[in-house]
């Protein structure tokens, strides 16, 4: 074994490390708010998530105290409803997702041999959105006006009529804010995994953890927008009275249930996949052999990612949907058992063929297995429609879902925590305290929730604040409550262990568990630039096959070991083969993420207190700040002080036509497209299913104007693709003028859409039809404006010399937006004008 300690550092290499530290290091004091480094921001995510976990756990203890005895008066029903709503919300949105994202943000570049994620400023922006959204949501609990309609916020219960206070607004606005953070992390994780792997790491050679995170990130990108749309519509209904979910106005409350669970079910797998990723990472290490059936696992991940989108209706089995439709979802829900079982048996055969060691992280993995398998089996039972009808919304479901979520997420997370602690702190955790806390949590958990299955079968409903002693549920509830408190004692011990280990843990060796992945090749505690030189990796197990990598990397023997230019750089590689494509130049610390997320927080708060002019103003400020942020890109002197390269190195990314910006734009459009499809789904759903839907005899929209606006858009996109094609041939004659022209076409399109809206004289407060039309038109209007502004800015950037035949990337990015707008605009035209006109006013 060769270690970093054995590295021989020439003065030259020492200078290199010092230079790296200067360029990559974090500033102190107030400027720490500008930090964009993934290691720092990832840790911030995880620590914040842990704090919210404790808050959510505290709420759970309040619930168990209330339910410990029959007819208990510990809390009033109003407070109890707030407490269980916030428990679910905090655990799902403020703990589970962010802490896993934090782990991915921290770990992915290190495992892939990169120096940072591909959009570092977006990482920081995501964190601030999460922090502010979380604080806003949590403040409602302190102000005693927390949402009280359950974490699923079924309307009409959450509507203005039945929940008049600001509680629901806190939920809708706060959660949307937090989801922005999840989306931004999702987008950049996808692009980072595909495009910043180190040289030679082909897609099928990357660690399984990266596959899991890739699937999770893609699922976030596709799965979160339906809820964002739902939240926007519900908030519009609450604030202005647009009747999207109100039957009398032509809406339908079941639409909310669809949009919510369209997000809500994939969410469960978004939480489970990283957990399974941790298991798949740890088991080979502690079995001392490569995982068997890598391909099987990849297939299982992909199947899970897809099938989990086909299950959402199994949360709605009792809503009165036709049984045949339910049967489809029931069958699809059972199908998930197959990829799950594949993974469990791949893990088993890896252990079977290896020589497993029982260590503290492994103990948590075994705990995971026991709990998760039980949760999975009750899950298959629940997929059966008739059985589901019986136990739906009882404590049986509460028990099932805690088995799946705690088993599938918390236990692997704890395993990962103990496994990677030495990587973060350079010290080993205490075996004894760790075992104690494991057994307390494991036993406490099972005592609480195993009994709860039975309580549910006896007929105890969810979300009741008390029960009558005559029901005979007293003893089971008491046992559950005692178990809950044992579990919290375990959590307290766990925190103590981790806190102590930073002070007293013994120093960890370079690779304490004998792991195979690159994060263990780094110095401990980690350097902000991860690797001083980037290695070529062509195996799935770099540290097993080349144990001297830690030393050679540290000695600067590999690629990109140059810091004279003062740029933050990492490699951009081919998504498939891992061949080097370009040198990605990463932006440095910046205030823009903080400022723009602050502006968004102001928008959020002023919507809460219903001061709409402040909200509008702040939204405008946020847009300006975001555009100003985008200005500091590419060849801007602030981000690219020096554009020279060693001749041997691949070109800087903005000199190519396929840099990470192009990929980021495409993946963002996946999210955007999912939002748009949800909107179309809402339109068609209300049209066909809502009981009181009113379709006017003829469309209120002016067809000539719509076609004219579409023509402006089409012409603009055509010119833009011509310009890009010329750029590909290194020809930038007339680029600036062309960009201005397209910008003007975009402005024209926006103006025409504006006139269409104004002329239509819609009555969005009275009819869901008009309200949905308005939202759809505003959606295309915003996109038209964005397309126009970006083109005008491109014109300016050509003038400044940031965009040219030598630096052709940005127009390609803008072209992606225009193509997207083109597809959206014309499909929407068909959906809201052509189809109603052809099919007539009958509903």
């Amino acid at each position, binding site marked *: 074994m060769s270690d970093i300690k054995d590295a021989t550092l020439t003065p030259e290499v020492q200078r290199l490390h010092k230079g790296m530290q200067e360029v990559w290091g974090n500033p102190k004091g107030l400027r720490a708010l500008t930090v964009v480094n993934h290691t720092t921001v990832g840790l911030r995510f995880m620590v914040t998530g842990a704090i919210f976990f404790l808050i959510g756990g505290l709420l759970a203890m309040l619930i168990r105290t209330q339910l410990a005895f029959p007819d208990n008066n510990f809390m009033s029903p109003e407070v109890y409803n707030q407490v269980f709503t916030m428990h679910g919300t905090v655990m799902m949105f403020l703990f589970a997702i962010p802490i896993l994202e934090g782990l991915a943000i921290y770990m992915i570049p290190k495992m892939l041999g990169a120096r940072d994620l591909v959009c570092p400023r977006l990482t920081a922006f995501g964190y601030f959105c999460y922090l502010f959204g979380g604080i806003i949501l949590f403040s409602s609990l302190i102000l005693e006006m927390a949402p009280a309609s359950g974490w699923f916020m079924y309307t009409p219960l959450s509507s203005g009529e039945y929940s008049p206070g600001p509680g629901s607004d806190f939920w809708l606005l706060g959660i949307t804010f937090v989801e922005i953070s999840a989306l931004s992390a999702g987008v950049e994780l996808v692009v980072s995994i595909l495009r910043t792997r180190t040289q030679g790491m082909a897609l099928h050679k990357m660690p399984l953890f990266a596959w899991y995170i890739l699937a999770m990130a893609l699922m976030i990108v596709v799965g979160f927008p339906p809820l964002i749309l739902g939240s926007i519509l519900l908030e519009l209904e609450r604030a202005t009275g647009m009747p999207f979910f109100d039957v009398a106005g032509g809406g339908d409350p079941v639409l909310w249930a669809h949009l919510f669970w369209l997000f809500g079910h994939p969410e469960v797998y978004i939480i489970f996949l990283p957990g399974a990723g941790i298991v798949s990472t740890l088991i080979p290490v502690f079995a001392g052999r490569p995982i068997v059936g890598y391909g099987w696992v990849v297939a299982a991940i992909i199947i899970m990612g897809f099938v989990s989108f086909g299950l959402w209706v199994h949360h709605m089995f009792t809503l009165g949907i*036709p049984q*045949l439709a339910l049967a489809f979802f029931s069958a699809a829900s059972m199908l998930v058992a197959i990829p799950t079982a594949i993974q469990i048996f791949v893990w088993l055969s890896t252990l079977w063929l290896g020589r497993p060691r029982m260590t503290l992280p492994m103990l948590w993995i075994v705990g995971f297995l026991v709990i998760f398998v039980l949760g999975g089996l009750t899950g298959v039972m629940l997929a059966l429609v008739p059985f589901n009808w019986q136990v739906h919304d009882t404590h049986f479901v509460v028990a099932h879902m805690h088995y799946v979520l705690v088993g599938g997420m918390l236990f692997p997370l704890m395993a990962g925590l103990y496994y990677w602690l030495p990587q973060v702190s350079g010290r080993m955790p205490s075996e004894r305290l760790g075992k104690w806390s494991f057994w307390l949590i494991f036993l406490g958990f099972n005592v609480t929730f195993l009994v709860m299955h039975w309580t549910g079968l006896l007929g105890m409903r969810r979300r009741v604040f008390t029960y009558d002693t005559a029901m005979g549920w007293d003893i089971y509830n008491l046992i559950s409550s005692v178990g809950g408190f044992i579990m919290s004692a375990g959590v307290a011990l766990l925190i103590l262990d981790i806190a102590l280990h930073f002070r007293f843990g013994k120093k960890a060796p370079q690779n304490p568990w004998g792991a195979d992945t690159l994060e263990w090749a780094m110095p401990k505690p980690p350097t902000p630039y991860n690797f001083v030189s980037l290695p070529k990796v062509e195996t799935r197990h770099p540290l097993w096959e080349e144990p001297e990598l830690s030393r050679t990397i540290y000695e600067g023997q590999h690629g990109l070991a140059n810091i004279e230019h003062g740029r933050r750089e990492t490699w951009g590689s081919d998504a498939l083969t891992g061949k080097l494509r370009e040198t990605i130049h990463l932006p440095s610390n910046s205030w823009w993420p903080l400022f723009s997320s602050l502006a968004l927080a102001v928008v959020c708060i002023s919507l809460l207190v219903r001061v709409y002019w402040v909200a509008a103003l702040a939204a405008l400020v946020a847009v300006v700040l975001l555009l100003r942020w985008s200005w500091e890109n590419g060849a801007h002197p602030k981000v690219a002080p020096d554009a020279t390269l060693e001749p041997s190195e691949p070109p800087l990314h903005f000199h190519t036509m396929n840099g990470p910006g192009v990929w980021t734009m495409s993946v963002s459009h996946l999210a955007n497209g999912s939002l748009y499809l949800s909107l179309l789904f809402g339109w068609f759903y209300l049209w066909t299913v809502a009981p009181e839907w009113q379709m006017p005899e003829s469309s209120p929209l002016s067809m000539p104007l719509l076609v004219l606006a579409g023509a402006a858009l089409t012409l603009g996109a055509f010119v833009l693709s011509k310009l890009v094609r010329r750029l590909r041939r290194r020809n930038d004659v007339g680029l600036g003028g062309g960009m201005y022209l397209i910008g003007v076409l975009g402005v024209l399109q926006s103006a025409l859409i504006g006139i269409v809206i104004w002329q239509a004289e819609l009555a969005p407060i009275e009819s869901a039809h008009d309200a949905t039309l308005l939202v759809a038109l505003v959606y295309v209007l915003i996109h038209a404006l964005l397309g126009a502004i970006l083109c005008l800015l491109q014109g300016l950037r050509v003038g400044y010399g940031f965009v040219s035949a030598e630096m052709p990337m940005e127009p390609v990015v803008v072209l992606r937006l225009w193509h997207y707008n083109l597809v959206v605009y014309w499909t929407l035209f068909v959906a809201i004008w052509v189809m109603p006109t052809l099919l007539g006013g009958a509903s």
Partner: protein
Amino acid sequence: MKHLLSLTHPIQLVGGLTIWSIWFVAIYGGLSVACAVAPPDPLRDMWTGINLAVGLATLGAMALLLLLSWAAVLAARRTSVRRECYFGNVSAGIYLFSAGATLFVGYPVIFLPPCL
């Protein structure tokens, strides 16, 4: 573009389930619309045109997926590049799974009426 359509490209990993998803959305959406526009008489139980249409769509989608699965196996055998062989085989597995999933999900049309 031709490269993407080759059965050994990793994009094929998601091909089978994409077809499955489209089929799934089509039968679920089609069923909802059909029940809203022209619900059949409950007396006919499961002997309706809707069940027949869904059943045929199921068989069609399954046949297509089986065919693709077989083609992916053949493509994986033909190529000599390890990476392509790998992705071809994994894709074939997922195509096969999708075919099974199609049959499994579509099967209830033989014992349930469509709109109740």
